[in-house]
């Protein structure tokens, strides 16, 4: 699959409603994810960012509304077919404890029956970019430090070169210097082979540095969704203004 780059939105959520235990979280949410751009979602803890990613990935079915991926409406059961084209790094990292770091990363490629050569190549490439050495790759998850595990999870999400990437606070446990390297890698990648990336972060500077668009979420609503510069220069609400002021 290739995301049709002429399409404005690789993913489109229309009129999504979702409640947990009769507590509505989303009410008629509309959201579109710009094709081949990096979009950051920021917002208060618990406002529904991770849940939005789960909706897109199909892990949580909406109570109501439509989800379009690459221009096609998909039902909850169809969504399974799209998942391999969406790399997904979950907030809890969630490495498989019975596989070592390398095996966690390459699992999908093995199932896709890549040649072991191309698997090794891709693994080495990603590990290098993420600052993981061979010793780390051969450890089991419980032997990794928090930041190492998070980067292994990131490699796992990116292994198949998915055209869509969903990153849920994927750099939060990585130290600033390594993080800079990863930013550089992403920005360069975006120039040569652009992906559609949706990243959740609490670091406004990360959002500004990495992304093309910023979506600000508040209590299950997108209060501002605009190119970075616009969010910084014309914050739509007080909340956005505070975010921008405190962190830039």
């Amino acid at each position, binding site marked *: 699959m290739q995301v049709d780059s002429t399409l404005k939105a690789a993913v489109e959520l229309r009129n999504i409603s979702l409640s947990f235990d009769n507590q509505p979280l989303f009410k008629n949410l509309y959201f579109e994810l710009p094709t081949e751009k990096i979009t950051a979602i920021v917002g208060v803890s618990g406002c529904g960012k991770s849940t939005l990613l*789960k909706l897109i*990935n199909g*892990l949580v079915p909406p109570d109501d509304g439509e989800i379009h991926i690459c221009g096609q409406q998909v039902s909850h059961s169809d969504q*399974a077919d*799209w*998942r*391999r*084209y*969406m790399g*997904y790094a*979950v907030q*809890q990292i*969630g490495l*498989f*404890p*019975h596989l070592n770091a390398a095996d966690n990363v390459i*699992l*999908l490629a093995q*199932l896709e029956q890549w040649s072991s050569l191309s698997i090794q190549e891709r693994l080495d490439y990603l590990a290098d970019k993420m600052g993981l050495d061979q010793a780390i790759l051969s450890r*089991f998850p*419980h032997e990794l430090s928090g930041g190492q595990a998070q980067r292994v999870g990131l490699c*796992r*999400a990116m292994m198949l070169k998915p055209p869509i990437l969903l990153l849920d606070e994927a750099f939060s446990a990585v130290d600033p210097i390594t993080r800079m390297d990863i930013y550089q890698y992403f920005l360069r990648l975006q120039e040569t082979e652009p992906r559609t990336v949706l990243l959740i972060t609490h670091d406004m500077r990360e959002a500004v540095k990495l992304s093309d668009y910023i979506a600000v979420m508040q209590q299950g609503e997108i209060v501002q969704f605009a190119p970075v510069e616009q969010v910084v220069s014309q914050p739509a609400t007080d909340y956005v203004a505070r975010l921008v002021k405190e962190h830039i």
Partner: protein
Amino acid sequence: MNRWLIVFIVGLLLPLQSLAKTVVVGSKAFNEGYLLGEIIAQKLTHDGFDVERKLGLGKTIITYEALKQGEIDVYVEYTGTLAQAILKLENTPSLNALQQHAKQEGIKILPRLGFNNTYALVISEQMAKKNNISKISDLVNYPDLNLGISHEFLKRKDGWQPLAAAYGLPYQPVGIEHSLAYQAIANKQIAITDAYTTDGDIARYHLRILKDDKNFFPRYDAVPLVRTDADPALIKSLQDLANHIDEAKMQQLNSQVVNDDQSFAEVAEQFLTDEALIQKSNTQDLNSPWQSLPRYIIEHLQLTILALICSCVVGIPLSIAVYRRPQASRMLVYCTGLLQTIPSIALLALMIPLLGIGWVPAVVALFLYSLLPIVRNTLTALLTLDPVMQQVAVGMGLTPREQLRHVYIPLAVPMIFSGIRTAAIINIGTATLAAFIGAGGLGEPIVMGLSLNDTTLVLFGAIPAALLAILTEWLFEGVERRFIPAHLRNTLG
């Protein structure tokens, strides 16, 4: 990894294959049957066959069916029994005619061993001499003799009444317990009783068998039976025994067992050596349970392992197939639970009409019993998996099959193994009951020992069973060490 598992299993089952190629000697469950079985077994062993004994199988029909179905390869039957009880022929046909009938059932009758074990009337030698009585028709002249006839013979259709009619005997006999009759003759309370011609007590009590000069009694010639497709070498070896045992000889052999307390194996070996049918072996006591121990253990292992493999192969996939559907899972647990509530002896007994005797029903019963711990642990393990792992597995795009294969099952493995180990141990215990239906194993000495009230023999089954349980634990510890990463392992192994 999988390769090793297969090698391991095949290795364990190999003895089953090799045993399947041995000759299995059967017998019915009474002294003469055991003894003739043992004689045949020793003869065949001497002639180079790999012999397995399945002696004491039970009633006539079970033993005959076992022969027909190939569970045993040879046993000794009596022509009269064959004609009447098995082939259901009206009058007693000739051996040739009998051979024809048997052939249609795929059975071959080998030459007579030499004795005719039928009913007879016996009289004390002394009294016989005094009155010059040697055949039944002589009795007509001595209407004053006391006759004590066993209850069974009195009641039989072909027993006392037609006999008396055929010979015109003028007696009103008294019913007597057979076991007391000889003593009664010795005490001169009665003069004559009925007996089997090969009864070891005839010689002991100095009795004379009255000649059946009107050929009233049907012939019960002892003949080895094999299947028509039997190995010619086997037939050849058995034919050597032809005409080596006459009534007197058989009486003597029976008496050695009953009165002299010798073991079947000793008597059989003595006989074969005396008749120059085999050379005397130098081994120690042949009947020692030590000798059978390896066979007990191997059979027990085979039963247990086969059943365990079956219940893994059935139980684990079944649990995996249903675990997402609560209703189906519930049904599965209920059904495996129901099987557990059938008492083991009842279940084994239930199997006989369906699957006959031997190791097949035993394995099936064990298989059914070991399902529950495996099924329940598999289900519980799959249903209590860390939800984050499930989210990740689904979210990264694994198909349901891949989720199971690469994530859920590996994570459930310690718990599944725990179920398999419980099942294995319970199996080792329950398999001791398999001996009741001729499936062998360590239950054989236990059952024998219990019925003979021989504690040593019981221990010959019980102690190896206990050791097997520990061995099994070790084995599983090894297997787990091989297949489960250390940090996920139930560290006690």
